[in-house]
């Protein structure tokens, strides 16, 4: 796949053939009679597609997006035939023909346009991604959307799982918020149809008329099992095929287990340290930079995480087009920076100080995330020798505290550029690091960064965009040190012996329309 960033030229080129991720051809002998049973936590709260956090619809194959991502992280059409940028503010969407919702209604231009406009106006996240979207029907299967400002990120935004999973607006309107009516409405296009759901179980059956073919699995049952160890036990006892949401603690634990296997995909998403630039000592660039230089990223990924995470070499995953490996470990450089800034250990207690103040950093970690806690403790241990005193504080929700108070200096947060933001670092930046960001944990207020983000969004030329992207990374890591990627986590899944050779997809949707046991 192309390493180029999406552009007019490439957008025109992506009028591709059906993309079959990891297709397994089925012989007649491979008749599967049992549904796939997945142990998960909090499957769903509502079937209402306009509510937030609707990741499950794409995850369980109920719904689909207009665009998807290749294993390399490039946006490509899925329900669309093509997506072409026809003017700075205009994109032409051509639908694949022959796609219908599960209720039999054809997905045509008219219904697509209605969906897009409604979603932009009513869904919180879709509205934030593509506000005031106008959609005009220009053919049976062709829609032209107009954005208020030039937006080069549209292809990736249409991949976004909890914003643009396509549904039948008429069916959703007719259901009028009633959960049973949603279940019966067949409002999406995916390979599996919601049969029933409760707070203990989500039952799906296959969509016989799915546009890519009949799914080999007769159905899927997603069980709500809140406790991770109980999910693993369910797999080991043969009561579930897969267990989701298993921490990397289980990786080494399952290395010799004949009943359960810990699978991982290649894609990386960062676990980051946000730094509060509003209070000392992280209001100073040299201290932030020293922190970034002093952390031993290799030790965290390879030793503390036993190799189940990858060493962070930059803010973005190494496989991501244009990412820079500019995050390095150099403790002597870190020490030199601190010396230069006047932070020296004048009282001999092993902690650097300046004007009577110790170099002390309160690092927040989510108590419920054992990997975050381990990482925070590891950072504490790594920074002690160069005289930085880290005080790890475990809190229930880092986000709440980081946004509402100033009683912290740094915070461990998970944030996947690819997994969470469909590879749109522009969107990620807009949400977290600009002066008007809604989740500006770091209190970043940098006009240069704001301008850079605006330029990135409106830049369509791939070479120029790549240049800006790298400029951004240098600014964020080397020049201003706003952010640290502590380590890179990978999507993971625990499976039983019948799926032990299963290829996890990089995109968080491990479960595909043609998923079958690999070792029946």
């Amino acid at each position: 796949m192309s390493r180029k960033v999406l552009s007019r030229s490439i957008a025109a080129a992506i009028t591709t053939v059906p993309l079959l991720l990891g297709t397994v051809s089925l012989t007649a002998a491979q008749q599967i009679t049992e549904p796939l049973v997945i142990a998960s936590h909090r499957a769903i709260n509502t079937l209402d597609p306009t509510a937030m956090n609707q990741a499950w619809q794409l995850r369980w194959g109920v719904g689909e997006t207009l665009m998807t991502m290749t294993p390399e992280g490039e946006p490509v059409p899925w329900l669309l035939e093509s997506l072409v940028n026809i003017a700075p503010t205009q994109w032409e969407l051509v639908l694949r023909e022959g796609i219908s919702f599960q209720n039999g209604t054809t997905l045509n231009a008219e219904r697509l346009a209605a969906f897009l406009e409604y979603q932009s106006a009513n869904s919180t996240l879709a509205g934030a991604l593509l506000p005031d979207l106008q959609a005009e029907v220009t053919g049976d299967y062709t829609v032209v959307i107009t954005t208020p400002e030039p937006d080069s990120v549209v292809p990736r935004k249409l991949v976004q799982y909890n914003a643009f999973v396509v549904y039948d607006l008429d069916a959703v309107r007719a259901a009028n918020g009633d959960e049973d009516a949603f279940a019966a409405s067949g409002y999406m296009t995916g390979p599996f149809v919601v049969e029933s759901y409760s707070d203990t179980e989500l039952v799906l059956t296959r969509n016989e008329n799915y546009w890519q073919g009949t799914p080999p699995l007769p159905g899927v049952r997603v069980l709500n099992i809140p406790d991770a160890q109980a999910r693993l036990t369910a797999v080991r006892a043969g009561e579930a095929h897969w267990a989701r949401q298993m921490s990397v603690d289980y990786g080494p634990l399952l290395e010799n287990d004949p009943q359960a296997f810990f699978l991982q995909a290649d894609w990386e998403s960062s676990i980051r340290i946000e730094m509060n630039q509003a209070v000392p000592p992280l209001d100073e660039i040299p201290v932030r930079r020293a922190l970034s230089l002093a952390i031993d990223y290799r030790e965290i990924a390879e030793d503390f995480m036993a190799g189940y995470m990858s060493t962070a070499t930059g803010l973005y995953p190494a496989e991501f087009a244009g990412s820079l490996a500019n995050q390095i470990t150099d403790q002597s450089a870190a020490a030199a920076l601190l010396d230069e800034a006047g932070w020296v250990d004048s009282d001999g207690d092993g902690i650097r100080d300046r004007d009577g103040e110790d170099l002390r950093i309160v690092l927040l970690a989510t108590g419920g995330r054992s990997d975050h806690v381990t990482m925070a403790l590891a950072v504490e241990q790594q920074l002690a020798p160069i005289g930085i005193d880290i005080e790890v504080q475990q809190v229930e929700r880092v986000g709440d505290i980081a946004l509402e108070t100033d009683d912290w200096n740094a915070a461990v947060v998970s944030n996947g550029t690819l997994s969470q933001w469909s590879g749109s670092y522009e969107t990620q930046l807009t949400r977290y690091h600009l002066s008007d960001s809604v989740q500006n944990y770091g209190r970043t207020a940098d006009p240069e960064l704001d301008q850079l983000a605006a330029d990135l969004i409106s830049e369509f030329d791939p070479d120029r965009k790549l240049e800006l992207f790298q400029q951004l990374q240098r600014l964020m890591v080397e020049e201003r040190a706003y952010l640290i990627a502590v380590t890179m986590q990978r999507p993971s899944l625990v499976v039983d012996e019948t799926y032990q050779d299963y290829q996890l997809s990089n995109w968080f949707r491990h479960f595909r329309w043609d998923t079958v046991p690999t070792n029946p």
Partner: protein
Amino acid sequence: MSAVESSVGRRGQAQGLFLSPQGRAGLGLLVVLGLLAVFGPSFTEGGAYQLNPLERLQPPSIAHPFGTDHLGRDVLARVAAGARTTLLATFLIVGGALVISIAVGLIAGLSGRIVDTILMRLIDVVLAIPDLVIALAVLGILGPGFGNLLLALTVASWAYLGRLARIHVVQSRDRPDIWADQLAGVSTARIVAGHILPHLVAQLSVVATLRVGGVVMSFAGLSFLGLGAEPGSAEWGAQLAEARIYMFQAPWMVIAPAGCILWTIAATNLCADALRDGSKA
């Protein structure tokens, strides 16, 4: 405590504790725990928190007599550090509950009907709510944290003792020695200090001692629910909650803290038995 040494019960209790085999065994176990809590952490020199990722889940050896945990920390060092945290916290909770219940018992037992009724109804209310729900409520209001947890468990623990205390105080009002003192014009404060309090403390401490095991165990249960001591901190209950996923691969991670808890329960039960037998004698 009172300076007046008139309490037969107390002396009998003390004898029970020091002279009976049960009492001696219990005290012996407690002394070992105390030594572990006081000196253990300094011997192991911060090993309780030293991460050695390359030595994770090592079985017991000479270097690590109780093995290492999933982050390569020395389990012996962790239970030693945990002895301090857990026992101190338990002592604060049980002691706090004892103080509150004695105060409430005295006030209720010696005041007029109205105060008595109000306090007894309050006790009924607190007793009506299961301990876990009280802990959830207190932590829900104050937010999670080990300090708040101590408060929550104290709140959950005092009511039962308070009711016993009040019954004891009311009963002792009818004792002949107290009648005699009252007739002789001895002040209420002196009667309380000299005659009621020593018996009360003696009686309640037996029951309070028996609560120790329950309190230590509730740390573990609340840690499982994510409401206990911070994961990673050296506290037996939190260690057990953390160890649970490794319990079949690295059983030493479970056995060490569970053994300490067993030890504590055995020690306090033996002491309570000895105290009770002594006060009956």
